């Protein structure tokens, strides 16, 4: 038997969580070191998986399959293809940088890292699952720790409200999808939850058209689709920095990815029928999200709504059901994940020093924390889709795909790029340039070395992907090919 690398990645965080829970609460340093060790280990393994994925061969690789509940055809079936290998890497990156940035958490760090790592196991689990039951199993594991992470360590003003809102939205979405999944299971008559087999189930057109909106929208709630995006800015703002990074960076991709894997790939007929409508929703996401972001005064809300806008692009890419659209969406999931993790890290660092996030009150932070300012500018350029940065590699194909299928939507969506540029430039100018207000002088200091490492890691990835897209594009292309085959050649 080959080394079960995906299982090791999936279970490393939860094993680390158990070890951390066994440590005495007062041993805070040991807790942090254990967390960092586990995160580093998971990151290295996910890098290994990413780079040893054989793009030429394509398809699912590193497959592991064990029977779990044979009576119902449930198995533990893990594997990665060109679509999810980048997402596994993304999770590893965000987990690693999230731990670095959370080093300073002093209130019950033991519980914090334990919950964060349970969440990470859920995320890894969803990304590698090839079994529908397994996908739900890990999906729910990823949802509930969020509640505690936000409500305990979050921003005091809104944390209780935001945490409950987020949890209920996501739970409602997932159980709606769950009923659809059960309907698929029994209708297929195959007696298996294996998604590779269910892809060949040949559901009737009527069945697909009936269930597609439930399954797709149920997951897309976590992807932040309009009009169910409302939990996301509130949740992001209320969450502690590392959790916002995880949430916007990884968890929203979880929703988009599951909507793709279960909704589009298992019910392709339904997807073709509904996508012209869904693309309109995503258009609202893209433009309206960007507009709302541009009128916010709270630094973190700007980033929160920018996530809604950018995730709208991912879903819009899916909705084109075309090669370019899907390719761009696949890269955008990775690119936006890293970018938004960077953004939230920066917001957290500024807030920790300034104790305010009101943009008009901030200014001149370039002088005290230059690394942070540079990192934010890099993230901003990615966000605007500048060539040379990963955002361009991702958004350009999406717009091409939309142009091919729905030219008018592409034109309207392009407005968002302008709006994005406007709010990014405004923040850069207002927060990082200008003069440091008097109230901050003296007691605002630079961030520590761990924070800098995290920012450098994230920035390097964004630039690396931008200047050398071949590192990811062919891989995602191979994943897109498989989806297009299910969609009937297109």
């Amino acid at each position: 038997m080959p080394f079960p690398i995906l299982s090791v990645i999936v279970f490393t965080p939860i094993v680390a969580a158990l070890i951390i829970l066994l440590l005495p609460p007062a041993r805070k340093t040991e807790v942090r070191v254990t967390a960092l060790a586990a995160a580093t280990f998971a990151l290295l393994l996910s890098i290994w998986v990413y780079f040893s994925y054989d793009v030429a061969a394509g398809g699912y690789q590193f497959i592991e399959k064990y029977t779990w509940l044979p009576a119902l055809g449930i198995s533990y079936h893990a594997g990665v293809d060109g679509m999810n290998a980048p997402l596994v890497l993304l999770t590893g990156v965000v987990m690693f940088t999230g731990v670095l940035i959370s080093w300073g958490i002093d209130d019950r760090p033991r519980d914090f890292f334990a919950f964060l790592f349970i969440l990470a196991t859920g995320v890894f689990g969803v990304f590698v699952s090839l079994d529908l039951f397994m996908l739900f199993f890990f999906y729910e594991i990823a949802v509930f720790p969020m509640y505690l992470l936000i409500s305990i360590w979050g921003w005091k003003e809104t944390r209780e409200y935001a945490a409950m809102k987020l949890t209920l939205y996501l739970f409602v979405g997932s159980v709606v999808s769950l009923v659809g999944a059960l309907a698929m299971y029994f209708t297929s008559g195959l007696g298996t939850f294996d998604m590779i087999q269910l892809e060949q189930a040949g559901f009737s057109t009527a069945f697909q058209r009936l269930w597609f909106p439930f399954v797709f929208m149920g997951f897309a709630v976590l992807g932040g689709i309009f009009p169910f995006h409302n939990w996301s800015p509130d949740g992001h703002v209320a969450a502690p920095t590392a959790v916002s990074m995880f949430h916007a960076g990884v968890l929203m991709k979880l929703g988009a990815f599951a909507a793709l894997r279960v909704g589009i790939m298992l019910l392709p007929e339904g997807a073709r029928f509904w996508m012209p409508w869904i693309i309109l929703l995503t258009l609202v996401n893209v433009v309206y999200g960007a507009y709302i972001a541009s009128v916010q005064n709270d630094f973190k809300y700007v980033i929160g709504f920018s996530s809604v806008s950018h995730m709208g692009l991912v879903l819009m890419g899916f909705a084109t059901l075309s090669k370019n659209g899907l390719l761009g969406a696949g890269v955008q999931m990775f690119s936006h994940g890293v970018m938004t993790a960077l953004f939230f890290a920066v917001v957290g660092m500024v807030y920790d020093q300034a104790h305010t996030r009101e943009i008009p009150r901030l200014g001149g932070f370039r002088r005290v924390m230059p690394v942070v300012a540079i990192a934010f500018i890099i993230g901003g350029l990615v966000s605007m889709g500048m060539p040379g940065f990963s955002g361009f590699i991702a958004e350009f194909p999406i717009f091409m795909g939309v142009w091919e299928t729905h030219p008018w939507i592409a034109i309207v969506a392009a407005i968002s790029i302008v709006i994005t540029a406007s709010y990014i430039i405004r923040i850069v100018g207002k927060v990082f340039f200008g003069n440091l207000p008097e109230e901050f002088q003296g007691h605002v200091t630079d961030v520590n070395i761990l924070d800098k490492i995290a920012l450098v890691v994230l920035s390097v990835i964004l630039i690396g992907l931008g200047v050398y897209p071949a590192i990811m594009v062919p891989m995602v292309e191979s994943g897109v090919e498989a989806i297009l085959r299910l969609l009937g050649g297109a």
Partner: protein
Amino acid sequence: MSLGTIDLFMIQVILPEILLLVLALIILFFDLILKGEQRQNIGWITAGGLAFIIGAALIFSRPAAEPVLVWGGMLRQDWFGFTLMILLLFAAMITALLSVNLPVVGDRGEYYLLMLASTLGMSLMVSAGDIIMLYLAIETTSIPLYILAGFLTRDEKSTESGFKYLLFGAMTSAVMLYGFSLLYGFAGATSLYEIAARVQEGGLPSVALFTTLLLLLVGFGFKISAVPFHFWAPDVYEGAPTPIAGFLSTASKAAGFAVLARVLFAVFPDLTAQWSTFISILATLTMTLGNLLALAQRNIKRLLAYSSIAHAGYILIGLVAVNQLGMTSVIFYLIAYMLTNLAAFGVVLAYGRIVGSDEIAAYAGLSRRSPTLAFLLLIALLSLAGMPPFAGFVVKFSVFAAAVQAGMIWLAVVGVLNSIIGLYYYLTVLKVVYLFRSEDEEKPLPVPGSAWLALGVLSVGIIIIGVLFAPVFGISTLAAITIY
């Protein structure tokens, strides 16, 4: 049908019941001779004895693949009854463990004696094959429970609890007995399986049969605390000693479900279309009302009472599905629910006895005061909410799957919507536990070793079932197919 000679096999079948009686006598004996501090050992003896009985039952009383009627048809030996009996014995063992050291009840021999008597009744209930046996078993179960609920005689709430339980119990039991008498009148037999044969021959008026079934449902509905026979549950749970509340909400409920399933499937399979619609409405009401009322609770025991009503509703979904997956998921659900709810009551007990309050607000600061206890409560409540990797997820999944398989997608939807409400109030409790501060955070929170042991066993069980569910699902399937 004559009794004939008593052979070894017949003894083997009722070995657990015999041993329970012996254990009860041993407890009486120790109650007389143990003095002072030593009296705390009575609980340990009860728990140890029950563990021994479980072991003995697993070795000597295992049923054959085919069900057999024994003791002149009074009992039916099958995997269904056996599985549930082991479950009940386990619940009794955990309850005894949780009661060790408990003020007022922990060192009283008669407390354990009554608990064992009730367990004896339940273990007969789950395998009764005759309506007379069934009625006797139900009464043997109930009467000691009435006393136990009112055991804290100096506590007004406990007295009220015992009395309320008695009144409701006596009332519903009378209605049920009337149903039994009608059943006998129609069929001319007392054995459930002979009655079933008469019913299947036809000729009996189905309206009359259905009316009889409704009368029986009053009694069973009371046991499982299904709406509209649920009114007693919150008051009784609140007033009763906490271990007994846990016992009532798990063992007593499981025994009630066993009887309900057996009677529905064995005697009334021809009326499936009628009762399945009727019970699906009952399930909807039970889930929805239980969950909605739980939202308003300020006392954790009352909250758990309403949540246990709601869970009865989820389990009913499995019954309504009337397919093998449905019946399997009923047993599967009962197993997981028993572990989970006992764990929840266990934490409530361990914490409540120190702080002297069962108000949810009193749980503020628990996570700082005892992170371990807080985490155990988290496991129990999230499992109740149906979150993986805990047992509650996979059992809810299988119940909803059964409903979808039976084509009752609407019922599965009602179920999932209800679990959202459930998640909300369980999270609200966890919020208090993890988020809010209290002045007592620095005070120690001593938890007796017996309670740690019980909680440890339960939470490990919850996680194991939640992750490696195949063996337990297999046992549930085995039990489910022998019910017919």
